[in-house]
């Protein structure tokens, strides 16, 4: 799944030092989830502070994606409490919409809308959800396209872009909603090795601006560089959580050690 050559060597890049505040951005308390009989999330407890950057890793099927997808209700949890930006997630559609407006998400397969141009992909949510005038939304979109360094692609369709460019468009699309929290679900796993770097650079610059981020990724170089905390999950549980230096140099749990020895050579 993770390839060694796609890992950005950590010593090449300076670490990001944006201290998190004391405010809580996301809180999960005793969260459980089942897929039918299968217990996929077991007693998840996690508190993410505003401005904090969390990297979540673990073997496939460990529940990492499911966990962050619970935060914007793409998956429903069955037990426990999830509070996002001070709003508790319930079945109330209004609250779900409110949370989704504040939480941006990037997916492994980008999930861009192929029938819309890049610019239309970016302006869609600001226009329809934030009720922004079209002109203003387009200016905003161009601002973020410049930021992810592909303003010249604005009028192309997603199918005409490379994977790395598509993922950067997806990041810009999420940013156009001015989210307070960003979720990344394996944003570089579907990319060619040569394109991983451009996406990670975009994510690093986002981290430097103090965005609250939860990233499911196996890019350990990225984790070392930007994460405040690294979480290792296995079998639906949080196995180990630590700040990156300690996590990589001195893992405690046997499962973590095994995992790290498999992916770091």
């Amino acid at each position: 799944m993770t390839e060694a050559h796609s890992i950005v060597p950590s010593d090449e890049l300076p670490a990001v030092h944006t201290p998190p505040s004391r405010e809580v951005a996301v809180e999960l308390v005793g969260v459980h989830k089942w897929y039918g009989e299968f217990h996929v999330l077991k007693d998840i407890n996690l508190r993410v502070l505003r401005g904090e950057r969390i990297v979540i890793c673990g073997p496939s099927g460990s529940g990492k994606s499911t966990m962050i997808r619970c935060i914007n209700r793409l998956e429903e949890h069955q037990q426990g409490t999830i509070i996002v930006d001070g709003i508790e997630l319930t079945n109330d559609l209004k609250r779900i919409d409110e949370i989704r407006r504040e939480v941006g998400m990037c997916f492994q397969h980008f999930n861009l809308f192929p029938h819309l141009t890049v610019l239309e992909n970016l302006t869609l949510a600001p226009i329809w959800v934030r009720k922004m005038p079209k002109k203003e939304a387009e200016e905003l979109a161009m601002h973020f396209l410049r930021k992810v360094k592909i303003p010249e692609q604005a009028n192309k369709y997603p199918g005409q872009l490379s994977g790395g460019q598509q993922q950067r468009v997806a990041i810009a699309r999420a940013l156009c909603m001015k989210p307070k929290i960003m979720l990344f679900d394996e944003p570089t796993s579907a990319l060619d090795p040569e394109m991983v770097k451009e996406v990670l650079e975009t994510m690093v610059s986002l981290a430097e601006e103090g965005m609250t981020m939860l990233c499911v990724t196996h890019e350990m170089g990225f984790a070392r560089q930007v994460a405040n905390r690294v979480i290792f999950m296995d079998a639906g549980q949080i196995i180990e959580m630590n700040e990156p230096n300690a996590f990589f140099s001195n893992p405690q749990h046997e499962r973590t050690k095994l995992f790290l020895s498999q992916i770091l050579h």
Partner: protein
Amino acid sequence: MSMTFDDGTFIRTEMVTPLPPPVRRVGAIGWMRENLFSSVLNTMLTIVGILAVLWLVPPLVRFMLIDAVWTGENREACLGPGVGACWPFIKAKFGQLIYGFYPIDQRWRPNIVFAAGLVLMVPLLVPSWPLKRLNSLLFFVAYPIIAFVLLTGGNINASAFLFERFGLVHAITGDVTVAGVNVAFWVDYVLTALLVMAVVGGLIAALGGNGRAAARAAMWVFLAFGALVLVWDIDFGLSYVETRQWGGLLVTLVIAVTGIVASLPLGILLALGRRSQMPIVRLLSVIFIEFWRGVPLITVLFFATYMLPLFLPQGTNPDALLRALVGVALFSAAYMAEVVRGGLQAISKGQYEGAMAMGLTWSQMMRLIILPQALTLVIPGIVNSFISLFKDTTLVLIVSIFDFLGQLRASFTDPNWASPVTLYTGFAFAGLVYFLFCFGMSRYSLFVERRLNTSHRH
């Protein structure tokens, strides 16, 4: 420098410059060799194809053009030996084939309807022409109203809606008309609207939905329909032409266009309903779709024409053409629903998640993301349904509505034009007309498909 294999290692010293592809199609002979005679089987098929063309086309051309009779007043012209198509017959019956028994002095009314339809539809079909919003408003809202008034004569004399059927309103209001408007009807209408709003709102609220919004939606439907009735009630001084007098291509087009325009939105709603998370909505959609797909169109038309009046309260006798129209529209909506559902199933979960994660509501997600892609995918299926609907309209013949083909067959019975070739001529002409319409739809759909195919555009 070319690459050689005499050594295990290799380092490129200069890049190969791109060259034009080898030329394989040289002129007509090259093309023929590649496409017609590339293999033994292909050669044989080519020869069979040429023979089939030689066997079919010359007799057809001889019948339709060379041996055809072009002038004449009656059957005498088409009686001679070896005579081809009898075109004077078509010419003599042309008016009937187009308008049916629509009064001859009133034929300008369908003519305006035809012309207005064409004038409004063509710019709608050309993507680069401006004012699409105004254009579609005119075509989908204003045009049907005007067409109705022109074709029927308007002035529908609305007198009873629901309560009045049981004689409940008239007794109280009496026979009052204000400025040509029947007060009893409108009291009845408003009462019915309030009743429906209360029932719908209450039901939805009881099911856990937004009752107020549902009641408001019902109110808008009643307001819109009320406005329609108000327009249709105006006396424009046009004589009344009952639908029994309509016929020919006019009826074919009225049924086909109404069916097409009504079945797509209805089908989309049904498809969404069938994939809904709400069990009752899903169940109702499934029942509706499976019911209409389970009965033949002929049965539907028979039921609508001969049995429905037995169930309806006395005094309500909806027009025969209207009943057939509703039957055809609902029937094709069920088929359309399944076509659209196929498209919806082809859209990946990622598109839904991408849309939801951005905070779009369900209806925004469907309208802006899912349906545009799903419908584009199933354009061939949609147009397939349109084409088969267009041809199926001819089944209304069995409930004594004379569409284009029905009118044609009726004209065969005219002894003035009884000749050995009348039948062939008529069907050749009908085939040509149907083909033009269906082929037109098919070509246009190909054009739209190519235009909307953005996902693989490079």
